[in-house]
Every structure is written in structure tokens, then in C-alpha cells.
């Protein structure tokens, strides 16, 4: 896999940046050429909150090359309504349940061989933020 690809994806991968439609305010992640709601093509960048709940999940025990199993994958429903596929981290399979609050963290997604480059991006962990902030 190529370096330019991940460079291109950096704002989505590191900041969970999508877009807000200039005409109807719909949020989209990832960015698209047209708004899925109104067909508009003017957008501003929009950084998603990174907070949401687990919509569905699975423990991958048979994995593709580059992803040592087992690991947890989920669909996360973000506060803003966006449904997003991502890995879960900092949690064991038996602790996960549908509806549990999670938040985005930046973690290593994969490495391209022992001497290859590392790819970082978003994963989700059980929500800690509330405790730290309040």
C-alpha cells in the first residue's frame, strides 16, 4: 500500500474530519463530491466530535494479512448521526455491548512489514472523557 494514499487521508484519519453541506448543513464522513441529502456541492470542513455509541461489533479471529488477530471491529453511531466503521481498542470482547458509549483515539492501524511504514488513524475506546473533564 502506498504512502500518498495515507497522506491524502490524513485529515480524516487523524482528526475525523468530514464535511458540512453549505446549503443544508448535512454532515458527511468521509467527504463526498455531492451532498447525499440535497445534491449540493459546496462544503466546509467539519471535525466530528469523536463521541458515539457502539451500533454493532465483531471479534475478528480470522484476519487479512497485516492485521494480527484477534481484534475488535465495530460500527459506531456518532453523536452527529454518522455511522462509521472502525476498530475498538482498550477493551476485551466480552466487555463490549451494543449501545455502550465510546470515543475516538488515534492508534496504529497497521504496519507494512517489519521495515515498512506505520499507519495511524482513528479507533474507538470506551468513553473516559467524562471522568477526566468533570
Amino acid at each position, binding site marked *: 500500500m502506498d504512502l500518498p494514499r495515507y497522506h491524502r487521508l490524513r485529515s480524516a484519519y487523524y482528526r475525523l474530519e468530514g464535511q458540512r453541506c453549505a446549503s443544508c448543513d448535512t454532515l458527511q464522513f468521509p467527504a463526498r463530491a455531492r451532498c447525499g441529502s440535497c445534491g449540493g456541492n459546496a462544503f466546509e470542513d467539519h471535525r466530528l466530535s469523536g463521541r458515539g455509541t457502539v451500533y454493532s461489533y*465483531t471479534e475478528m479471529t480470522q484476519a*487479512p494479512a497485516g492485521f494480527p488477530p484477534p481484534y475488535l471491529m465495530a*460500527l459506531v453511531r456518532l453523536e452527529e448521526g454518522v455511522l462509521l466503521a472502525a476498530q475498538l481498542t482498550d477493551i476485551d470482547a466480552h466487555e463490549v455491548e451494543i449501545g455502550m458509549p465510546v470515543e475516538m483515539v488515534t492508534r496504529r492501524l497497521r504496519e507494512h512489514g517489519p521495515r515498512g511504514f506505520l499507519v495511524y488513524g482513528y479507533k474507538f475506546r470506551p468513553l473516559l472523557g467524562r471522568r477526566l473533564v468533570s
Partner: protein
Amino acid sequence: MRDVFIIGAGQTPVGEHWDLGLRELGATAVRAALDDARVESVDALYVGNMLSGCVNGQENLATLLADAADLLPAEAWKIEAACASGGAAVRAAALAVAAGAHDVVVAVGIEKMTDAVTGSVSAGLASAADQDYEASHGFTFVGLSALMMRRYMHEHDRSRDEFAPFALTAHRNAAGNENAMFRKPISEEEYRESPAVASPIGVLDAAPICDGAAAVVVCTKEAIQSGQEPLRIAASAAATDTMALGARGDILELGSAAVSSSRCFEASGLGPSDMDLFEAHDAFTIITALSLEACGYAGRGEALRLAAKGCVAPGGCIPISTSGGLKARGHPVGASGTYQIVDAALQLRGRAGPNQLQKARRALTQSIGGHGSVAVTHIIEA
């Protein structure tokens, strides 16, 4: 558009063919279909295949097969629509004949998966998901299907055990198909205890990695010769849905399957209850359930009840996977859609051996790729 008929069908056994490569598998299936049709040459060869580039290092596959099957200088190219490639190749052949571009075309679905190690085959299969936002995060087909299955169980209050009838039916049917990979029935207990590949999906929810090729010859009405057993393609349609699973309004609705099947019903003036069998895309038991709901055989969340009543077994209201399906016949991905049509043709001609249904006049076949992002549906009638 001109009417299109299937006049020949051929296949190789599905399995681990250590001694056969792409050229041998492809040429065998193509020549078997031509022999069955009693024709020597064709105007075009369309190849349904998903992984020849990334797993076998072989592109320009259609020319390779045209050469190997002794069909030069016929027009030939490959059609890729993930796991729906085999259905898409048949549709491409039917379109070329219907449009009047060609009179006789052979479509072959082919996949050679066992030359590579499982990890790299999984990575190849995962490339049918969105590489930037799904595959690069560790998602595979099975992982995405597992998310659908978990959500299905949650929303409809179902247990994994309730999916068993799909796997049991497929394995029982495969026992009667000499070309199937797994010719042994399985028990409910074996299903229940099969180890997870991506929870809640277990080994016995999932179709196996394997090799195989299947082919059909299609032609115009005028090109039909005496001695052939023509079957009419009553309808053919394809549709797409979002690449990202999360972008769908409802992840438990297979939009591409629903749209392509309703287009087929509309075009043919037939309905779900007019079908005598349904070759469903049973790559995972959850996909079988969602396909039955998408094609109008069960309401939302009702497919497992249908299966529990025995409806999907031979003699039921809509027998599925009558030759073992993807689950037990085997799922050489880009070939599976063509195998479905070959198996439907055997049923409609009364040549399905021990699996022959009493009444088999019309068949629905549906080939699905990328956890529902693409579907190709056909209605074939005797």
C-alpha cells in the same frame, strides 16, 4: 431487445484443485458448456472473475481463457463485480445478445483461490470493501457481514442457533451434487459448536475458499438448433448500493438485492411465488436471511421463521441452494454467480439427479458482491 436463451451449461467440480490453474479450469468449463450446447465456436467470451490480478498475478484473463479454450479470435474480456462477478458476466453476455451485437456468447465464472495463503486471499477479498475506510482498518467481508448478523440478532431478538437451517439445508443438498465441495450433511450440534471466524459468524455460517469454473452459452432464438434444450432468460437486472456499510440508511436491508429482484419481477410480470427455486447468495447465513427478505419471501426480520418452518428445504415453498449453494457446493467467489445459473439450468432441465425438485419450471438466481454493494439477479424459465 431480443429474447435470450441458455443453450449450454458446464462446470468443473468445486474444491481445492492443486493440479489445475486458471487456464485448465476455465477451458474445461467453457468446453463443457459448448459441448452441452453442441456448438463449436462463439462470437464472444465474457469472464466473471474477482481476484486473478491480486491473487494469481494474471490480468488479461479473458484472452488467456479464449486462447486456452480454443476460441480465438472471439471478443473476450473480464467483468469484475466482486462476488457478483459470475452473475455479471452472464448478464453481460445476455445484454450483448439482446442488443443484437452477438448471436452466440459464452460466459464463464472462474476463481482460483487456493494457490495463495489464507491471509492474502482474505486481503484480496477485503479489497471489495472500501479500501480507504474499511479494508485499511482491518475489515473483511466476513467482518462486515458479522456486524450485520449481530445487529440482526439484536434488533429482531434472534439467536445464532436460529440461522442453522440455512447451513443444514445447504450441506444436505450438497450431498446429492457430485460437483460440490462438501458432500456431507452437518448436524445442528456441529453448526452450534463451529468456531467463530468473526463473532457471531462461525465456520459453518460461512462459505469456503476454493477453486472452480462454471460456464453457460447464451444465444438468440434464431440461433437455437435442434437437439438443444433452450431455457429462456425471462429477466436480468443489476443494482448497486453504498460501498460503506455505515452509509446505508438501514444496514439490515440489502438495497441492491431488493432493487435488482423487483426489476426482474416487473420485467417478467412474475412474482416471488412464481419461482420454484431460489439460488440465493448464501456466502454467510445472515446474507441468506437478508436476501430472502429483499426478494419478497419474508418480511423484515421474518426470514428465520420461514427457515424454521422448512420453507427453504426441497419441497418447501421456496427451496434455496438446491445443489448446496455457496455454503456447501463452495464459493469460488467470481465463479459462484455462474454456478448458480448452471445449477438452476440443471433443475429446469430435470437433470439435477438426487436433488431434482418435483416442480422446476422457473428459477430465481441472485449473485451478491461486497456485502450487498452490488447484486445481479436473473429469472430463468424452462
